């Protein structure tokens, strides 16, 4: 058992603006824990989490792999989230390297075929397109869930870059919900980017039917 990261340094005031770990976070932690052994054997050097929020997931990954064994890069559009990620790294003795950025934008040039573990628990909730666009601009709490008409507005952009980012042995874990159309995501990633995928975990939590997909070359 790998303990859930200590988040006791974060307060209500933080969670007014930054996503508080919830079922979707925990389903990703559980998927990573199940794969812990195989993740260690690929000896990851570069891990990148998109939308790290509180930093809970990357801190957990750091506990699996060891703080000094890999570089943990974490992006988020929300500057408060990058601050929380930083503190969560400190609190859990994992060096997390937050970058205030959208998706992997400033990293794509240098990380071509280099990311060994890529993680994204995206804003996946179906909303009006306008709502998702505003949420992306606002870069506050609503940006953590508002995903546009099929909940894929933000995720789709990253999916187009994954094939370029992943290293030959790389793993990409994505959280999704049923409305995102999982079979279509899988089909597209295979046909457009040649990436294989499987559903590594699924769980019902309240109204949400959550999935964790894993993609490899």
């Amino acid at each position, binding site marked *: 058992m790998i303990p859930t990261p200590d988040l006791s340094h974060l307060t209500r005031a933080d969670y007014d603006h930054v996503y508080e770990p919830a079922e979707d976070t925990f389903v990703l932690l559980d998927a990573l824990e199940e794969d812990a052994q195989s993740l260690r054997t690929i000896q990851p050097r*570069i891990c990148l989490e998109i939308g790290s929020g509180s930093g809970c997931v990357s801190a957990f990954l750091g506990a699996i792999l060891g703080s000094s064994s890999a570089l943990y890069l974490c992006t988020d559009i929300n500057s408060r989230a990058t601050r929380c990620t930083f503190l969560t790294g400190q609190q859990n003795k994992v060096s997390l390297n937050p970058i205030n950025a959208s998706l992997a934008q*400033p990293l794509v040039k240098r990380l071509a075929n280099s990311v060994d573990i890529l993680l994204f628990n995206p804003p996946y909730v179906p909303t009006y397109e306008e709502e998702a666009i505003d949420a992306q601009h606002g870069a506050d709490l609503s940006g953590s869930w508002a995903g546009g008409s099929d909940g894929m507005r933000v995720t789709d952009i990253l999916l187009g870059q994954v094939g370029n980012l992943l290293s030959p042995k790389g793993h990409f874990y994505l959280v999704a919900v049923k409305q995102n159309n999982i079979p279509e995501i899988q089909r597209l990633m295979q046909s457009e980017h040649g990436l294989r995928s499987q559903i590594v975990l699924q769980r019902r939590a309240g109204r949400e039917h959550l999935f964790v997909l894993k993609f490899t070359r």
Partner: protein
Amino acid sequence: MVRLITHNLLACHVKGCTSNNFPLKLQDVQIALREAEFNEDFLRGFIPRLEWGALVQAAREVGDDSLPAEVPEMLDDEFLKQLHHVLLEIHIDEGSMVCPNCKHVYPISSGIPNMLLAEHEIG
């Protein structure tokens, strides 16, 4: 925290700025040295992913000129210790990173780089 290992992976991504957009030039930096755990396997595994010239240049910009101009053929202990220090122990807490091509300024504040762009700058 912005350490030189992260700096080595960041490029300017302003719309249309696609060449000579790396490495970002470090300016007006406030540096802190913080010890990090030495991990030889990590360093050896990471060397192929580094842009060496950019690292040497960035280290000079923050006042460290201990690295050789080329990666030595023999990665001995002394070299790895030095590399460890430069990559992982020099923290840029405040300052800015400037694109050598379009001169866009990316600020670093409280150890976090702001790489966000305004709508009209996004490619």
